[in-house]
């Protein structure tokens, strides 16, 4: 059985989306900037119609949507674009569990003379609001807190954060790559000034995305050139990508409720089944979590081997293990919620999607315990980390 359960990483494109995109490769291939002839106008129409879909999905106006190449570009544009504009404000507030596209951008800004405060989260991954308020300074240029975390699935109190930001006159950015199309978003109600969206997380094509830029919010562009997208993002528009993204988001919003309920049921079944494994637990918030996210830890297991074993059994999943990361660093998110490093290695993320069925969930519930057992068998640790635990305890005393 082939079971893809890594939808937080990327998703297949919905066949209805591919169908909408197809005419824009070989027939309506015009450049939207060439609106003096028909084939260019067709492309322009497609782009603007998609803009309306994206705007409608989040209660924005079409003029507030800027198309990008994806979530990473969006986060960079929103954050650098704000930071580099106002020379007097040199402080940025983020949470300690942001995606790399926010974290690394802020690390770069630090090198450019910015100060960055990382607000801690509780053991469920929820941002500490009073710490957030305390972090605010006169020269705070931006607050950026993700809508939902891509690893543990925790949904942040965005409306409250939006209110805090707006009360303090600070621009508020949220990275909604994991939530758009999965949970309702209303940029007005949530007081959001800037928001990042990505297409390939919601059954749209890779290489597309958008940022919402509230009317009146100014940004320094990342790409200079022909002045496309209200001068905020030059470059020939990726018409099929934009069409596909708009369609995917529209479909996801239309089907959000029904699919969300279905996924929640599947997710809870998965969680119940997996937690029967000894020395395992669930990470992230028990209720305030993405309908499709299940995130576990298993003691004495290293995640990369677990993912490989799952792959041998046709199952695709993710882990926050250091061994699986290109930098050999264990997940900063799992550290932020207080997990010791040796436990971070044993993490498993299963994120559900449209094609997943109850049978698939049951298959995973059947296969995983055997994998865990086999790996624990190979491991020198079965009951505890033995001498290491005492050594660590010793270390901590210093």
């Amino acid at each position, binding site marked *: 059985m082939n079971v893809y359960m890594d939808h937080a990483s990327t998703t297949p494109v919905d066949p209805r989306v591919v169908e909408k995109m197809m005419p824009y490769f070989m027939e309506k291939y015009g450049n939207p900037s060439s609106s003096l002839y028909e084939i260019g106008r067709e492309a322009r129409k497609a782009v603007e119609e998609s803009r*309306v879909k994206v705007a409608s999905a*989040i209660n924005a106006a079409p003029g507030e949507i800027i198309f990008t190449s994806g979530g990473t570009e969006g986060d960079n544009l929103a954050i650098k674009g704000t930071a580099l504009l106002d020379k007097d404000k040199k402080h940025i507030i983020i949470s300690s569990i942001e995606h790399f596209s926010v974290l690394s951008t802020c690390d770069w800004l630090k090198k450019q003379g910015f100060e960055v405060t990382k607000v801690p989260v509780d053991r469920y991954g929820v941002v500490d609001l009073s710490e957030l308020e305390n972090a605010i300074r006169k020269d705070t240029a931006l607050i950026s807190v993700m809508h939902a975390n891509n690893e543990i699935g925790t949904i942040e109190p965005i409306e409250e954060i939006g209110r805090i930001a707006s009360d303090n006159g600070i621009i508020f950015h949220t990275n909604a790559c994991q939530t758009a199309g999965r949970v*309702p978003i209303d940029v007005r109600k949530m007081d959001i000034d800037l928001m990042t969206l990505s297409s390939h997380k919601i059954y749209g094509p890779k290489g597309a995305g958008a940022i919402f830029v509230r009317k009146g919010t100014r940004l320094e562009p990342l790409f200079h050139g022909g002045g496309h997208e209200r001068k905020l993002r030059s470059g020939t528009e990726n018409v099929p990508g934009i069409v596909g993204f708009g369609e995917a988001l529209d479909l996801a*919003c239309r089907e959000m409720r029904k699919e969300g309920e279905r996924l929640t049921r599947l997710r809870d079944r998965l969680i119940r089944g997996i937690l029967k494994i000894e020395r395992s637990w669930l990470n992230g918030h028990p209720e305030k979590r993405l309908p499709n996210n299940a995130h576990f830890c298993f003691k004495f297991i290293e995640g990369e081997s677990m993912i490989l074993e799952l792959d041998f059994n046709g199952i695709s999943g993710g882990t926050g293990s250091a061994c699986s990361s290109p930098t050999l660093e264990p997940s900063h998110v799992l550290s932020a919620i207080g997990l010791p490093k040796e436990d971070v290695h044993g993490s498993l993320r299963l994120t559900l999607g449209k094609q997943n069925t109850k049978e698939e969930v049951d298959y995973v519930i059947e296969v995983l315990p055997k994998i865990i057992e086999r790996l624990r068998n190979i491991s020198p640790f079965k009951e505890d980390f033995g001498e290491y635990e005492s050594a660590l305890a010793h270390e901590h005393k210093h």
Partner: protein
Amino acid sequence: MKVPWHTSISIDWSDWMYSDKLIEEFRNPKNMGKMENPDGVGKVGNPTCGDVMYLYIKVNDDRIVDIKFETFGCAAAIGTSSIITEMAKGLTLDEASKITKQDVADEVDGLPPIKMHCSVLAADALKLAIEDYRKKKGKKSDMKS
């Protein structure tokens, strides 16, 4: 919370393209060509800017009885030239000089924002032609008196 995907928002295509009406005027301009012995001429624009309009009028009894244009420029310039000749024909000079750039733009069902200067040109050309006529007439009556 309400999921607002169903909100219907309409797109303002005039940001991107000409109205059908303007295209129609551009393709089939009325009153196009040079006029022999006009009573008044209005010339506006400059080839370096890409738009030049010549507007010719014939006046009888303070009324525009004939009007013609010659235009070097974009579709908006040609289309608004054509439409203003249609609007002005038969009007008294006082009526005609009240035509504004907005009247012109409305008459072609709107213009892309960056093309609004073309409707300004058209309205200015008409005003200049009327002025020219009045100046000449003034001179003539000066001569008579």
